[in-house]
């Protein structure tokens, strides 16, 4: 018989290695899945994990890693602070959309004026848009005790409808020959979040993600507020005893994660995507949840996890075009990763021990 035995304290070794073990387990079972779909599993795994980094066209894919990874990291950093405190913002997708709408809207309001001040205004508007959208569940939770999980999620669907509405109405390109979608910000110099160095994929969103990682690291390890965030997640009553104001913490965590998600949306719409359109969002807000957990809610971990997840996106696309692997298979693959991670987390806090057959 197998029994679980709680460790006197969390194991650091397992805490560091579970993500790796989870990735390996996912590769194995993902390979089985690909084999079941009639693909060569080794080839598929290689295409996903090797091709973008070291393959023939790596010069093209490597910058893409930054482009895909930046929004994931930016959003996941914000989410992780809340998750640590037991505040579950799962509506980052909605905040991402609202950031994009507000940021792009602010930029397009100036069209066709050119000026250095336009992009900073867009950044602020994007952050504010995401922040405001996240403040809805935050305020409702503080004021009425409403469940933030459900409210933030419902607001994703609302944001999607708003996105549809503005791309068909308010922000529709007047010179777009009736097609839905806004003007392309890539061709509006003052509003374009262009690559900072040609061919590197490095845009302001990447810079923002790195700053967010450093900020979160310092906050969690060196600052009272970060300590209070961790304390609230570990032991809410002890946090209250220590003097934490739960309402302020909720407003801070949700607000910050909303602002970061909004920024991610703005950087995306003004850069790689360029256009506010009905299907502008591709689920970064949800994938970021996986990234946050895969990075064990730790800023450096999230940075690595964001890179890995970006890899599966790009590798998935390559596998899609080269091997005909369905896009949904990659989604399953990512979901699997989260499963293994959560299941293996057990080893951090518990020891698995074979017990003697109990005397019955």
């Amino acid at each position, binding site marked *: 018989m197998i029994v679980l035995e709680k460790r*006197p304290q969390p194991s650091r070794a397992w805490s560091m290695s579970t993500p790796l073990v989870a990735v390996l387990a996912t590769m194995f079972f993902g390979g089985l899945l690909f084999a079941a779909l009639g693909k060569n599993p080794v080839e598929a795994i290689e295409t996903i994990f090797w091709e973008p980094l070291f393959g023939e066209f790596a010069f093209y894919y490597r910058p893409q890693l930054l482009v895909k990874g930046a929004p994931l990291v930016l959003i996941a950093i914000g989410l992780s602070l809340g998750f640590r405190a037991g505040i579950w913002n799962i509506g980052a997708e909605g905040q991402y959309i609202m950031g994009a709408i507000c940021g792009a809207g602010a930029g397009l309001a100036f069209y066709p004026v050119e000026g250095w001040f336009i992009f900073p205004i867009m950044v602020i508007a994007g952050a504010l848009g995401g922040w405001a959208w996240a403040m809805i569940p935050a305020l409702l939770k503080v004021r009425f005790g409403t469940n933030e999980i459900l409210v933030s999620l419902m607001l994703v669907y609302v944001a999607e409808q708003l996105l549809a509405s503005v791309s068909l109405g308010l922000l529709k390109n007047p010179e777009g020959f009736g097609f839905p979608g806004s003007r392309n910000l890539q061709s509006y110099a003052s509003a374009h979040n262009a690559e900072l160095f040609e061919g590197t994929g490095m845009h302001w969103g990447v810079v923002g993600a790195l700053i967010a990682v450093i900020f979160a690291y310092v906050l969690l390890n060196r600052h009272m507020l970060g300590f209070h965030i*961790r*304390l609230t997640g*570990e032991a809410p009553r002890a946090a209250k005893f220590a003097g934490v104001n739960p309402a302020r913490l909720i407003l801070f965590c949700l607000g910050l994660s909303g602002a970061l998600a909004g920024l991610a949306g703005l950087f995306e719409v003004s850069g790689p995507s360029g256009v506010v359109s009905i299907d502008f969002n591709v689920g970064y807000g949800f994938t970021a949840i996986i990234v946050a957990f895969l990075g064990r809610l730790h800023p450096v971990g999230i940075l690595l996890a964001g890179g890995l997840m970006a890899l599966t996106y790009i590798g998935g696309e390559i596998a899609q075009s080269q091997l005909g692997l369905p896009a949904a298979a990659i989604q399953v693959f990512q979901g699997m990763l989260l499963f293994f991670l959560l299941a293996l987390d057990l080893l951090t806090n518990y020891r698995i021990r074979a017990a003697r057959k109990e005397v019955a």
Partner: protein
Amino acid sequence: MTTPLLSLQGLTKAYPGVVANDNVSFDIGEGEVHALLGENGAGKSTLVKMIYGLVKPDSGTMLLRGQPYAPPEPRAARADGIAMVFQHFSLFDALNVAENIALGMENPPPMGDLASRIREVSETYGLPLDPYRTVGDLSAGERQRVEIIRCLLQDPKLLIMDEPTSVLTPQEVEILFETLQKLRAEGTSILYISHKLEEIRTLCDHATILRLGKNVGECTPRETSARDMAELMVGTALQTPQRAGRDFGEVALDISGLSVPSPTEFGTALKNVHLTVRKGEVLGIGGVAGNGQDELLGVLSGEIQTAADAVKMAGQPVGRLGPTARRRLGLLTAPEERLGHAAAPDMSLTENALLTGSVREGLESNGFLKWNDTRSFAERIIKAFDVRTPGPENAARSLSGGNLQKFVIGREVLQNPEVLVVNQPTWGVDAAAAAAIRQAILDLASKGAAVVCISQDLDELMEISDSFAALNEGRLSAPRPTTGLTVEEIGLMMGGAHGMEVAHV
């Protein structure tokens, strides 16, 4: 000689790192009240859990009326006529009395019949109880009655009672003892677990004493002095805390006309509470659990805010201040629940030292943390209070109850409070650690701090406090000097028998 009802032979149960029971043997006779005596951590709970089928012994056998007895689960134990009244964790607050009782029975009758049987049994044994009341609304004594009646409905041969009097007033204890004696007269055996020696001397026919998992002796309590039993139980002669004669200074803490609702659903509201504590004074607050102790601590720690001048420190209103601001003024508190309230279980001792120490020990500047200073503060606590741990980087949950309690109390005491409030400072702590904690409290008071000690252990309060008050249903009795108080007077301050006088056994 007749066959004993239950015979334990060489029971052993080991957990990783600790042998909870080591080759324990003894017999419980028919119609006998058998005491199982021992300190916290002596292995009493593990032993009864084996008898009740919750834990399986690693080795050893049990015989019930001469037949091998090895219950795979509590259900089987109940079927064999073993019933147990738990100290904690066995009632469902949101369900009513009858539902709670039905859950502890194998084949409960329909609810209507069950309700009338509950009324019947409760009247026979002098334990009045309404079957349709929600358990969460009952007092601690009434909750115990639910458990006892649940057991009695099954006509048990052996009734196990785990520390039953820790939740009762002295008057309620007397009523309980009458019930138990009636049961004994009817032929029911009782295994009575306690560390309260006088009780055992009054009630029990025979006693087995456990220390560190071993059976270290048996005796007939009526013929053995409490002191001898205590020494068997602890293993060494006990040290009573030393208190110097003290002069009290001006009023340090003043609560007047305080009424607050409880923040939790089945909590107790505080009603018009008044108290003052002077510098150098230890005020003991007694009372049965669940009569507003947690709420009183919350009001003092700042977790529950009140009207500004309902709570005053040295004349200054602090009722609206949060915990951090109060700490700055020197009002420090230590809640009852160690894991999860006073300390975060998964965080290190260093981090737990920061939890309340940041302001007074200067462990932060502009919000940035000084980890080195924090670590040395944690180390100072560990050293000064003899906390047994490899070091401050260990998680709070890795400490034993007594060690963690020393850490929690030490953390506050070392910050030199003006006023210290502690709730159940020695609950579940072994005798040596308890003595150390009491001594620390007394030393603090002799240095001029005002101390409020909330506890359910009356012996402890008599030992350390200068004045005594009791909480009863959220009301606080007027404090009186401890010297000269009788047990009857204390019992009445605690609310007497909580309306049980009407029932006659």
